[in-house]
């Protein structure tokens, strides 16, 4: 299983616009990817409702994971996405 950790750079955290940009990017990979807050159950990363409900704030560390083939490159690109301040873009 491929996993990555990433710190949320968006100043408003992972909701609203950043959440929608992120889930769209996950959906575009076509892979089953999960996202989890430290010590919490992973949720479907392509679901904007689940991602918003995580309530991940600025500076929080998240874990992305996938068991699908080709997941390494996909996770790397998602890490890069979350490392930018999506709200300011």
């Amino acid at each position, binding site marked *: 299983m491929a996993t990555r950790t990433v710190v949320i*750079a968006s*100043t408003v955290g992972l*909701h*609203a*616009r950043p959440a*929608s940009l992120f*889930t*769209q990017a996950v959906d575009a990979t076509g892979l089953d990817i999960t996202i989890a807050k430290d010590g919490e159950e992973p*949720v*479907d990363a*392509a*679901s*904007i*409702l*689940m991602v*918003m*409900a995580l*309530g991940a704030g*600025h*500076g929080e560390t998240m874990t992305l994971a996938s068991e699908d083939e080709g997941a390494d490159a996909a996770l790397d690109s998602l890490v890069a996405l979350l490392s930018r*301040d999506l709200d*300011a873009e």
Partner: protein
Amino acid sequence: MSGQLTGVGVGRGAVCGPVARVSSAPQAPAGETPPADKEVAKAAVSQAFSEVTAGLRRRAVAAEGTLAEVLEATAMMAEDKALIKDVLRRVTAGEPTLTAVDRSVDKFCQMFLGAGGYLAERVTDLRSIRGRVLAQLMGLPEPEVPDLSVPSVIVAEDLAPADTAALDLTKVLAVVTELGGPTSHTAIIAGQQGIPCVVRVAGAMTLVDGTQVAVDAAAGTVTTDPSEELRAEYAERARVLASLDDLTGPGATSDGHPVQLLANVGQVQDATRAAGKANEGVGLFRTEVLFLEATSAPTEAEQAAAYGAVLTAFGDRKVVVRTLDAGADKPLAFANQAHEDNPALGVRGYRLGRILPDLLDTQLAALARARAETGIEPWVMAPMIATPEEAREFAAKARSYGIATVGVMVEVPAAALRADRILAEVDFVSLGTNDLSQYTMAADRLQGALSDLLSPWQPAVLELVARVAAAGVSAGKPVGVCGESAGDPLMGLVLAGMGITSLSMAPGAVATTRYVLSRHSFAQCQVIAEAVLAVETADQARQAVLDRVDPQVRAVLAL
């Protein structure tokens, strides 16, 4: 017979008009039976969600700006895989179709409500989606706002942006909702448009279409079948409120004691907009926006251009520029700051110079350059000053760049207590009452549960403000207030009475404060200022002002 419903008001306006109800969203019937063919039912569920998504997306395309983004986000929620999967799973497990939709949406609503804040507000969008999906499945038209033939008071269970998008705002006299919150998107739009709005009105949906109602946003009330007297009173209030914008002179009490009325601005665009309104300048130009969104430190030239634009927009009016107020709570993308457990008490504001000394130098150089290029003198002040020594250090540095009028913010109790010595070092001070409250009351500004302690009416905070004002009067130097409390017209009377020389607030609040000040003499303000210090609680302090305020002001502002 007239009756009254109460809720939470947004805005000051009051208006009378006929009710135009938004039909209640369809609901899953009680005692619904499971579908005969689960596969057919599941196909219908998927179809309903995609129809609703498509409809929302059509509206998003037709809309502009923030509304378009909000509608697109709603569309994404309506096509959410996890939501639809949850409904399908329930149908497979034998639940009735409409009940399954209801329960799945409800599950997410509970999750969002549990998280509170921003997410709790999104429950309105989820419920709007539920109503639309149920309507699709039941073969009913999706719930829509009515076509308004005459100006009306919109009454709804709740209004999502998806619902208001189709509304002709020019025909909306007021908005009344049974659910929703004062910071919901709908309430914010109503506020911006100056439409009186009352939310969380229990029983709103019992109002009948066409009934005359009187909506008072200041009091948070909805009165059915209002009397002639009430109509006349509301009409008079509306007339005076509308006339406030016609007053444009400098702020002063009825007997001519001047109190400058200034605007708080955050961005160059805000400043240009505020410059077009009747005010005496800018009391707080927050420069952080230039920095917080930047991926690298803004250069002297970039900053000088922004400062110059603001100075030019206000011409010969005063502009007070606050140097960078950032820190661990408002982190800079281009500077690696250590994590702080207690950022409000950490390296922020002027203290940032301890780890990033170049930032302040570049900013002062940029201000000097803007001054040279425009020929306009900015007033410059530093945030988060705690000691006279820090004030002296900042003043010396700013003056070395040729800044003529140098000040500091007083938001730390230590600075308020030593205001006379701080004023000996600088040309003016400005009270940041939000932070002064947080530090005086030892209550985090972001802790909703402590909002009573954070009331600007807390006598301890007012006592510190009075102390700083008195120090200013004896030093003969300006003492302004640029926190939120400056925009409360009742507090404006207190501050004027204490000897505060300028009030800086949201540009939209200036007209009301100008009017309220003009209705009281300086001696009356002094009596009011003494009264608030003689009581024990925040509520008593506000009441002490209300008891002494001009009756016409009370009537017009529904205080």
